[in-house]
C-alpha cells in the first residue's frame, strides 16, 4: 500500500512538474511571439531571401530568375565601374563622420552636463533635428551650403576666407555631407549625457582632494568611465554611417561627378532604378559582411579599451 502510494505520488509529482515546467518554457515564447513572428517575417526572411537572390539575376518584375552563381559578386568587384568609387566614398564618409560625430556629441554632452542653465532646453534643441524629416532638413542645408548667399560662406567671409563651392566642387561635396551628418547627432548627445550623469560625483571630489584639475578629471575619470557609452555610440554610428543614404540621395544624388556616390545610393540605383534586384542583393550581402566584420572587430577590440565597472 505504501509502495503504491509512493509510486502514485511520484507519478503525480512528475506530471505536476511537467505541467509546471513546460508552460513556463512556452510562456516565454508566447510573450516574445509578436516580436519573433515580425522578426522572422520582416528581418530573417528578407535577409535569407537577399542571400539567395544575390546568386540570381532576379528583377522582381515578373521575369523568371536564373541562377548565376557568383557572377553578381564578380561583376561588383571587377566590372562595375562605380563600385570602387562608391566604396572609397563610403570609407571617406565613415572615416571622418563617425569620429567627428562622436567627438562633437561628447563635447556637447560635457557642456550640457556642466551645470549650465537651461539644460533641458538645450537638450531638446540638440535632439530636435533628429526628428525633422530628411527632405525638409536637406532643403535647409542646401541654402546653408549655397556658394553666393549661404550662411557657411558668409561666416568664412567674415574670417577673411574665400567662399567654398560646397555642393558643386567634387573636393568639397563630401565634406559638406559630413558637416550635415552632424545635424543628427542629437541622439548620441542624449546618450552621452545619460552616461555622464551616471558617473559618481565622489570620484571627482576625491580627485580634487588629490589636486586634479579639470583636464585630469576628463582624461582620468570621465573618459574611462564613459567608454561603455562611447563603445555603444561608436557601434550605432558605424552602422548608421554605412547605411547613410537620404542626404546624398536628396541633396546631391551622388554628384558632382560621383563625389558623393555612397554605397547605399549605388545599391539603390541598381535595385530601384534599373530593377537589378539580384545584383543589388549581392551588393547588400557585401555590405552586410563588411558591417558585420567591422562590428565584430570593434567588439573584440573593446576588451582592451572599454572599462566596465
Amino acid at each position, binding site marked *: 500500500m505504501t509502495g503504491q502510494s509512493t509510486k502514485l505520488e511520484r507519478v503525480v509529482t512528475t506530471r*505536476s512538474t*511537467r*505541467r*509546471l515546467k*513546460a*508552460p*513556463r518554457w*512556452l*510562456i516565454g*515564447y*508566447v510573450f516574445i*511571439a509578436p516580436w519573433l*513572428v515580425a522578426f522572422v517575417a520582416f528581418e530573417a526572411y528578407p535577409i535569407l531571401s537577399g542571400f539567395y537572390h544575390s546568386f540570381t*539575376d532576379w*528583377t*522582381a*518584375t*515578373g*521575369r523568371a530568375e536564373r541562377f548565376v552563381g557568383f557572377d553578381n559578386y564578380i561583376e561588383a568587384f571587377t*566590372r562595375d*565601374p*562605380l563600385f570602387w568609387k562608391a566604396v572609397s566614398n563610403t570609407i571617406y564618409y565613415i572615416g571622418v563622420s563617425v569620429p567627428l560625430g562622436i567627438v562633437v556629441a561628447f563635447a556637447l554632452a560635457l557642456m550640457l552636463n556642466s551645470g549650465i542653465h537651461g539644460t533641458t532646453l538645450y537638450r531638446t534643441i540638440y535632439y530636435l533635428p533628429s526628428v525633422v524629416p530628411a*527632405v525638409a532638413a536637406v*532643403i535647409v542645408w*542646401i541654402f546653408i*551650403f*549655397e*556658394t*553666393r548667399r549661404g550662411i557657411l560662406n558668409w561666416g568664412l567671409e567674415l574670417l577673411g576666407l574665400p*567662399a567654398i*563651392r560646397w*555642393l*558643386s*566642387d*567634387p573636393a568639397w561635396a563630401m565634406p559638406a555631407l559630413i558637416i550635415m551628418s552632424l545635424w543628427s547627432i542629437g541622439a548620441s548627445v542624449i546618450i552621452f549625457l545619460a552616461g555622464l550623469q551616471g558617473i559618481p560625483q565622489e570620484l571627482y571630489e576625491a580627485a580634487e582632494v588629490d589636486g586634479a584639475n579639470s583636464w585630469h578629471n576628463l582624461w582620468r575619470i570621465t573618459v574611462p568611465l564613459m567608454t561603455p557609452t562611447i563603445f555603444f555610440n561608436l557601434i550605432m554610428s558605424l552602422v548608421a554611417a554605412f547605411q547613410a543614404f537620404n542626404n546624398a*540621395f*536628396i541633396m546631391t*544624388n*551622388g*554628384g*558632382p*561627378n*560621383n563625389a558623393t556616390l555612397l554605397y547605399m545610393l549605388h545599391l*539603390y*540605383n541598381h*535595385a*530601384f*532604378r*534599373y*530593377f*537589378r534586384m539580384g545584383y543589388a542583393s549581392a551588393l547588400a550581402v557585401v555590405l552586410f559582411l563588411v558591417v558585420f566584420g567591422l562590428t565584430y572587430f570593434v567588439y573584440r577590440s573593446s576588451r582592451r579599451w572599454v572599462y566596465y565597472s
Partner: protein
Amino acid sequence: MSDEVRSLSRRSMLKLMGGVAAASALAACVPAVAPAPAGEAAAPAQAPITIRFWNVWGAAREELMNQIIARFEEENPGIKVQNLVQPFERREENLFTALASGDPPEVLMATRAEILRFANDGLIAPIDEYVAANGLDLTRFYDSEIGNFYWKDRLYSMPMPTGGGVTSLTLVNLDMLHAAGREDSVPATWTELETLAKDFTEIDDKGIVKIGASVVGATVGAMATDFFAWLYCNNGRIYNDDLTQVAFAEEQGVETLEWMVRFTNEINGGVQNVLDFFAGPGEATEAQPWYNDRQLINFPNVSIFFHMQTYRPDMQWDMGLRPYNSDNPAAKSQGLSGETFAWGYVVPNVVTGERRNAAFKWVQKITYDEDGGGWFVKQQGRPSPLKAVNEDPSYYETNPHWDKVLKSLESDVSVQILPVHAQVRDVVGQAVQAALFGDASPAEALAQATQQAQSIVDGYWSQSG
C-alpha cells in the same frame, strides 16, 4: 503566481499557440481590400469597384485630377477612384515595391522606359483588346505619342501628357532682352546661341550672377537629357536602327559633347559655376532664375507653361525650336519624344476580371477622353497627345506662341529605346560629367561610356533572346 501557471496546462498552451498561429496565418492570407464606404456593406454584390490610382500629379494638379475623378465616378457609378499621389523622389522605389508585393494598385503612372520594362517582363496587361472592343480610334493621337507605348507590337498604355515637347523648346526672356536694349530673335543655331549667351552672362568672383544660357543640366539625369537633346540637333542618334548597338559616340556625338564642354567652360566659366547657379530644391519654384530675370534663355519642357502662369504670368517671352549645329549640313532642330518622361498609365497583370475592365476605363478617361486627360493638360496650358485638343483656340489666350508649341511637337522624333534604357542613360550622364569636370576628353568619356552601355545592351539581348 504558481497557481496561475499551473492552471495553464501544456495542452492548453499549445492550443493557444496553435490558435494564434492559425489566426495569424489566416489573417495574412486575407487579400487587402479597400474599406467599403459606410452604408454599402449591406449589399456586397453591388459594391463599387475601387481603383487605386498611383500618380505623381501633386500640388495644384491634384485638384484638377480630383475633378476628373468626380466626373468619371458620376459617369460610372459602379467605380470609385482613389487618387493616391506619390512623392516624386521615391516614386521608382514605391512602384517597384508595389509590383513586387503582388497587390499593386489597379492603375500606375510610369515612364515609358519603365512601361517597356514591365511589358517585357510580362508584368502589365496590354490594352489592345480593350481598345478594339470599345472602338477607340488611336489615330486621334499623334503617331509619335501613341507609338511610344508599343512593345513587341502590343499596346500597353495611352499617353498623357505628351512625351514630346520635352527637349524641343527654346524660351527667351524678352524682359531681359529689351532691358538691355536688344531686339534679337530666338537663337536658331548653336552659333547664334553662343553669341547671345556670351552677351548676357555675367560672372564675378563667386560665380555666375546672370546667365545667358546653359547647355547642361544640374544633375546626372539632366546632363544625359541635354546631351541627347543636343545630339539630335546635330543629326546624331542614341542607338542604331535595330537597337543592337549604341551609337551616341559616333562623330556627331563627340562633336556635340565637345561643343557642350567648350560652351560651358568658355561662356559659363565651367560646370561648377552652372551647378552653383542652378542649385536649389530642383522642383519648379518661383526662386528659379528664369522667373527672376537672371536667365535669358531656357530649355524647359512644356510644363513650363503651367508654372509660368503661377510664378510669372506677366513675363514677356518668345520661343522657338532648340538650336541646331549649322556647321553640320544634315543637322536640324528636332526634339526627342519618349526618350525620358513620356508618361503612361498601366494596369498590372494581377488585376483581372471586372477590376481590370474598370481600370482600363479609368486609363481611357485620363488619356483618350477629351474631357479627361485632354482637359487636364489644357488647364495647365500644355499640349495634349490628342491632336484635336491642341486645336482649341482657347490655348492662345494664355499662350500667344501656341503655334510655335505645335510646331515644336511636329519637330519631335520618336526615339526607340530598350527596357534597359535607364541604365544606359545614366552611363551617358556619367560620361558627360566626366568630360565637363575634365576627368576625360569628350571622345575618351564617350568611348568608355560606349563600352559600358554596349555591355548593358548586349546583356539585354542575350537574355531576351
